Structures are given as structure tokens and as C-alpha cells.
């Protein structure tokens, strides 16, 4: 009897705790969303008005039609996709070589890759700027794509190597006995069978590029090359802040990552955990 009551109390406490955790997690987004839907007259009020009354999309229309947000958004999409293609194409082959070939220096390369991912980004931002200026890649998408792809390569190689190793080697051998080249066996058998790994890798790159601020901040200067996160930041530093528009822009910037998160949460967790645990 007593233990049953304790169980009920424990469950109730856990429920309250879970609600509190969720409330804290959602609070900033909820307030941002509320602000973005408010008519201009209700945004700067103190005490704050909690909910928009009536809700309006005016801030969204304004920010989409009268600011450079669509340019930033387009730039972020282009750079993210390009970095994704480059990072995956490069990492997939390297990871396969690491998984299936024994060659001299293999372990050295693996450890060296891991070691480079320990270099703090902020420490090599200056030389990267220097490098991009001298390579005539400053303020270009190509420069951004190269850096984003390269920074993701070490972790992707480690992640994908594990997935490739778990594909039974007999399948490849059977295919090669049937006259398939090694390359073809890789593309036709190993890659399709490693889809979960590829997906996890893809999500990691997408999140990294979409969410990055520092690299875009250091390597671009013009409006036409500006990415979303830097664009959001310049809203607060350049003009007096229009909070309605800023929160609307932030909500728009969140759409892709939140969509990826809800659709592919399990893969995301797997990928990022693999990233976290490798250390």
C-alpha cells in the first residue's frame, strides 16, 4: 500500500519534472514565435503581452519582401548543399579505403585525422582568412564550401568507416567473383547498404553548415555572399533592432533544422553521439 502510493507520487513528480524541462526547452522559441506574430504596436510593451492579439504575419511579409533575408537564405541553402556533396564524396571514398584496405600509414592517417578535429576552430580562423585572401577565395562560396567540407571530413571518415566495416565482406566478394570491379562493388553494394550511416553523416554536415557563424563571419564580407546566421547577427548590430522582424527571420531560419530534427531525430542522435563518443 505504502509503496504503491510512493510510486504514484514518484510518477506525478516525474511528470511535473518532464513538463518543467520541456517548458524551459521551449521558452525562447515560444516567446520568439509569439513576438514574430504580433502587430507592431504590441511588440514593445512592458509589462510584456504574452500572446499576439490578433496574430498577424506582417513581420514575416516585411522581412521576406523588404530585407535581404531571402538572399541570405538562398546563400545558406546553396553553400550547405554544395558542402554536403563535397564532404560526402570525399569522405565516403576515404572511409572505404580505411575500412577495406590494409596499407602502410593507414593507422597514422586515421589518428592524424582525429587529431586535426581537436584543433579549435577559433585558433585557425585567422590563418584561414589569410589563406582565403591569398588564394583569391575570400568572399566566395567556393572558399566557404571548401572549409566547411574539410572541417567535416575527419569525423565523417570515422563515422562512415564503422558503417562500411559492418557490411559483410562476402557480399562484395561474391559480386567481384561475378565480374564486378572493386569500385563498382563499392558503389552498388556497400554504399546502398550503408544508407543509415550516409544519412547520419549528411545530417551532421547540414546541421554544421546551417548553424555555423564563425567561418561565414570570417570569410565573407558582401551582402551577396552573406549566410543566414551572419545575416541574423547583422540585424542586431546594424540598425536599431526591429524585434518583430528579427524574430520572424529567426523563425524562418529555424524551419530547415527543426524539420530535419523532427523527421530524422533518431539518425541525428546516432550521428552526433558517434561524433561525441569518438573523443
Amino acid at each position, binding site marked *: 500500500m505504502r509503496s504503491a502510493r510512493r510510486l504514484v507520487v514518484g510518477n506525478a513528480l*516525474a511528470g511535473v519534472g*518532464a513538463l518543467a524541462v*520541456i517548458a*524551459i*526547452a*521551449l521558452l*525562447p*522559441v515560444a516567446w*520568439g514565435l509569439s*513576438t514574430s506574430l504580433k502587430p507592431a504596436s504590441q*511588440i*514593445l510593451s*512592458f509589462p*510584456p503581452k504574452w500572446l499576439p492579439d490578433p496574430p498577424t504575419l506582417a513581420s514575416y511579409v516585411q522581412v521576406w519582401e523588404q530585407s535581404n533575408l531571402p538572399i541570405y537564405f538562398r546563400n545558406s541553402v546553396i553553400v550547405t548543399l554544395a558542402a554536403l556533396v563535397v564532404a560526402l564524396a*570525399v*569522405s565516403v*571514398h*576515404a572511409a572505404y579505403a580505411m575500412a577495406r*584496405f*590494409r*596499407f602502410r600509414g593507414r593507422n597514422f*592517417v586515421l589518428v592524424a585525422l582525429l587529431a586535426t578535429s*581537436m*584543433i*579549435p576552430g577559433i*585558433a585557425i*580562423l*585567422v*590563418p584561414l*582568412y*589569410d*589563406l582565403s585572401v*591569398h588564394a583569391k577565395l575570400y568572399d566566395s562560396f567556393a572558399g566557404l564550401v*571548401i*572549409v566547411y567540407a*574539410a*572541417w567535416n*571530413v575527419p569525423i565523417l571518415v570515422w563515422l562512415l568507416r564503422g558503417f562500411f566495416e559492418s557490411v559483410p565482406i562476402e557480399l*562484395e566478394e561474391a559480386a567481384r567473383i561475378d565480374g564486378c570491379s*572493386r569500385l563498382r562493388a563499392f558503389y552498388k553494394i556497400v554504399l546502398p547498404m550503408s544508407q543509415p550511416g550516409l544519412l547520419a553523416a549528411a545530417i551532421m554536415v547540414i*546541421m554544421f553548415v*546551417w*548553424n555555423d*557563424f*564563425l567561418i561565414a*563571419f*570570417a570569410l565573407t564580407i558582401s551582402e551577396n555572399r552573406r549566410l543566414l546566421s551572419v545575416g*541574423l547577427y547583422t540585424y542586431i548590430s546594424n540598425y536599431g533592432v526591429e*524585434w518583430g522582424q*528579427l524574430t520572424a527571420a*529567426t523563425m524562418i531560419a*529555424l524551419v530547415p*533544422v*527543426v524539420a530535419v*530534427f523532427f523527421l530524422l*531525430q533518431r539518425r541525428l*542522435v546516432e550521428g*552526433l*553521439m558517434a561524433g561525441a*563518443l569518438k573523443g
Partner: protein
Amino acid sequence: MSLAITVTEAPPVATPRRPRRSWLPLAFIAPATALVIAVSIYPVFDAVLLSLHATRYAQKLQFVGLDNYLALLKDHTVWDDALTAVVYTVGSLALVIPYALAVALLLNRPMRFRGVVRTLAILPWVFSQTVTALLWGWLLNPEFGPVTYVAQQVTGGPAALLASPTGAMAALVGVNVWSSYPMAALLFLAALQTIPADLYEAMRMDGAGKVSLFRYITVPMITPTLVVILIQLTLLYFNMVTLIYVLTGGGPVGSTQTLALRVLKMSFENWDLGRGAALGLVLTFVNLALSLFYVRALRSPHR
């Protein structure tokens, strides 16, 4: 036909790695290696060179030896920033570990809608540091922020956190904890799920209470994970720039300016690339030292 015969005679199964030298592995790792050398390794050497020169923008002027480093050592504001980084890192760790563990224990309980609860509880994970700083900055806004309003109602006094040095640091640490607890919670959760239920059952049979179950089973079982989390988060916090830059900009009066943020400002606001590179390298060495320290700590007690 003939193929089938060869197979039965000499099954190739046991020799997946043929001794024959192949160009394939080389061709496969070459692009990745080239990228990493160009964008991670070469820049470190370039940073060393930059740090040994006087610079004007991206131009290296004359060689100055260790002058940039000496200037950093003599600059007491750099030491202030180092102290701020320590306060920020240790303060955040002290809060994030208990919170993340509590969240993990909560998510590990059987409950209704567990899937939804888990998803929502780790949502802050997907927010970039930029977005996190912007949204929290608006919540904490000294004039119109709801947090300011509620704090004012509760304390009855001035409540603009971001306007005072201690308040800004407290707010920054809080926001940092909000943005970084999900990864720690997920790692804790994964560790909790590997603990066999029989272990608890056996000890409960022996009359152990909840506290001793936690103390003698849970804690030792998650300690390795705890160390991994500590390493990850220490480095993350120590090197963190974006969140601080966007939320407080290092202010008010430098109270939230950490060493990593100083690298950014030295380089891209003052355009003193030589000194910025030097401080960046110092930061890298601190990273290495911290990692080694943790690795040794991980090895000593249990193995």
C-alpha cells in the same frame, strides 16, 4: 563455366586483402587528405608564422620573434580574459552536469508519451549558438524582456541581468547550459540504458534504498561517460565564441569576454592578425593540456 571451376578450386574468400599493390586506396584517401592538409594542418603552420611576424591585415611584415607572445603575457587584460574563461567554463560545468543527469534520469523512466517528451526535452540541441543568443537576448532584454519583468516582480528591484557584470555572466552561463545540456543528457541516457536491471533488483533484495542504489550502482556505471562529457564540454565552453559574441559581445565592460572571444576581437575587430594568431595558438595548447589532463584522470583511478 570456367569461373565456377576456379571458385571451387581456390575459394578467394579468405584473402580479401590481396598483396598486390593497388592504386585504389591511395586515390580514395588522396582528396580527403589534401583537404584536411590544406584547411586544418597548413593553417596551423601559417598561424605559427603569422604569430612570429608583425602584420598589417593579411600581410606579414618583419619577423619579430616572440614579441607577440611577450606582449600577450604582459597585457593584464589578456589574463582577465583567461580568468573569465575559467569562470565561464567551470560555472557552466557545475550547472550542466547535474541538470543533464537529472534530465537523463527523468527520460529513462517509463512514462506515457516518452518519445514525445524525449524529443522536446532535447530540442535546444538543434538551435545554433546564433539563434540561441538572439532568442535569449530578447527574453532577457533589459527593457521589454519577460524575464526582466518577472524578475522585477519577484525581487522588486532593478532586474536587467545583462546590464550588470555579474548578472551578465550569470545569464550567459544559464543560456550556455540551456544550449548544451541536451548532448550531455543523451550521453548520460545512453549510459543509463546499459545498466542491467538485475543489478538494481539484486541490491534492492538486499534491502538497499534508492540513495544507495544510485550511489553504488548508477554513479560507478556512468563515471566513464561522465569523463567523456567533461572533456567534450570543457573544450566546447573554453573555445566558445559565437554564443558570447552575439549575446553579450563580451560586455558589459569586458565582464564576459573570454580568451576565445578575445582571439576573434583581436583578429577581426582590431585586425591584429599576428597577435590574434599567437593567442589562438596559446588556446590550442590549453586545449591539448586539458585533453591530456582528462585522459590521465580517466586512466588512473579505475584501470
